[in-house]
């Protein structure tokens, strides 16, 4: 079943100046799909447009076959779409517990059960639940951002460059956690600059260039595609 479908989407911050120009994407249930591409390709704008944060001028977005095009950002978590922004993705003045508790209150989910499940998935957070989010390290903060987006039990979780600003070791830890999240039945869409890390956990990937999807394939196909490697992985044909 298709969890998320994006059809010929056009979106941008200013009217008449689309950054995303005809991007299409289809994500099956319980897949991890990476959206890759060079700087300025419109990856973040695409994911923000799906999340309701950037105006959409054309095209459609469907969540489990239900159209959610242009729906207000605050409605989407109630409809099963979770989003983790790239930066400022936790409430820094609130504790870990309060970050999760707030999301549970807003999304009207049973707090005790859901927070228990999330603390079981993120034991590092459980150990310091009273700590202010602003005091967490980069990796822990990213874990909390993911946990916060999972509070409403989303069917689809979208992440905007979760590896940004993290050391390679922490990237590995965060991405392993995403694999665990997928194992709980969540579909994951990942916008990433760190192509190798993303392809290591993704089932499929789409490459976005100048606002439109150019190549879509399995992670293995894309990792071994010399054209993709030359353009987006920083390798050239014949490199060793």
């Amino acid at each position, binding site marked *: 079943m298709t969890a998320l479908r994006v059809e010929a989407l056009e979106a941008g911050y200013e009217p008449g100046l689309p950054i995303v120009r005809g991007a299409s994407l289809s994500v099956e249930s319980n897949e991890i799909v990476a959206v890759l591409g060079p700087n300025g390709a419109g990856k973040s704008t695409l994911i923000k447009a799906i999340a309701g944060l950037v105006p959409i001028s054309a095209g459609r977005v469907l969540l489990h076959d239900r159209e959610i095009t242009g729906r*207000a950002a605050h409605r989407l978590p109630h409809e099963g779409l979770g989003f983790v922004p790239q930066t400022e993705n*936790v409430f820094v003045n609130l504790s870990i517990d309060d970050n999760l508790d707030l999301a549970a*209150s807003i999304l009207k989910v049973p707090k005790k059960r859901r927070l228990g499940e999330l603390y079981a998935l993120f034991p590092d957070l459980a150990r310091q639940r009273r700590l202010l989010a602003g005091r967490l390290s980069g990796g822990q903060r990213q874990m909390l951002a993911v946990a916060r987006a999972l509070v409403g039990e989303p069917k689809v979780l979208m992440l905007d460059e979760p590896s940004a600003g993290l050391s390679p070791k922490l990237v590995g830890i965060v991405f392993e956690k995403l694999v665990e999240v997928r194992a709980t039945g969540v579909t994951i869409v990942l916008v990433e600059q760190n192509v190798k890390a993303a392809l290591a956990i993704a089932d499929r990937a789409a490459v976005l260039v100048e606002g439109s999807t150019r190549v879509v394939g399995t992670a293995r196909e894309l990792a071994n595609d010399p054209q993709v490697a030359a353009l987006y992985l920083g390798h050239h044909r014949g490199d060793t």
Partner: protein
Amino acid sequence: MLQLIADGFVIGSVIALGAIGVTLVYSILRFANFAHGELLTWGAYLAWTALLGFAAVWGPMEPLGPFSFGWTLLASLGVAAIATAALALLVDLLLFRQLRRHGSAITLIMASFGAALVLRNLLQFIFGAVPEYYSREIQVAIRLVPRDVLGGLRITPDQLFVLGLTAVSVVGLHLFLTRTTLGKAMRATSINPQLARVTGIDVDRVIRATWIIGAVLAAVAGVFSGLTVQLRPQLGLDLLLPLFAAAILGGIGSVYGAVAGGLIVGLAESLSVPIVGAEYRAATAFIVLIAILLIRPTGLFGERP
């Protein structure tokens, strides 16, 4: 001495309730609203209008126990709170909401100056410039502390009412912000509006709640000012600088800071009267403000950037 402290707390209560609105609007809508003082004036005059209406139906106001006012003033306060909230929402709909979409913070600030002028002049046009009173009953002050102890303390029942209702309002607001989902959503929006949206918070609803709470407290502060001093069209303008001094002193964006700041400004004004005279008392609030900001630039309860 004790008398000056008590007077300072009464003035501080009015400033604190007004400063809460200033700080809430700043933290959630991200601009300094210089029209907030006018909400105090409108609140005071709308209550007076409602009081006249009640008097026309039920006759002149009968004082309630030791107070100078009767139950009709309490009912008028309720009417004024609702009407002032409606006025704040109307100003937001017609002005600030339009500018929020495209304007910068400075545009909103300048627009708030314009809104203040319109609101003040409209009020003066409707109600006139002559000072008014809710009640002309003469109150007998209660002696709480004998004269030979620190100069003694006498306080009127109306002043006790002001102090009591301020405490109830602040505790009520604290419970609202910490216990209710909407209150928590307001705190979250003040920290990070975009993250609040993707967490599922309807930020437009939060903005409406901010105006309503700020306006209701402004109406209460305006009525308190009218009750303990008098009603005049300059009421809000005269309180505007103390409101901002209190909000900044407490740490702009912090509700508890605004309350503490209001009480400190009120005390500073009151305690300075014997030293510098009544005409310069407003300046002392700013001396305290500068002194506190030199020691703690983010204010008493402000977050470090």
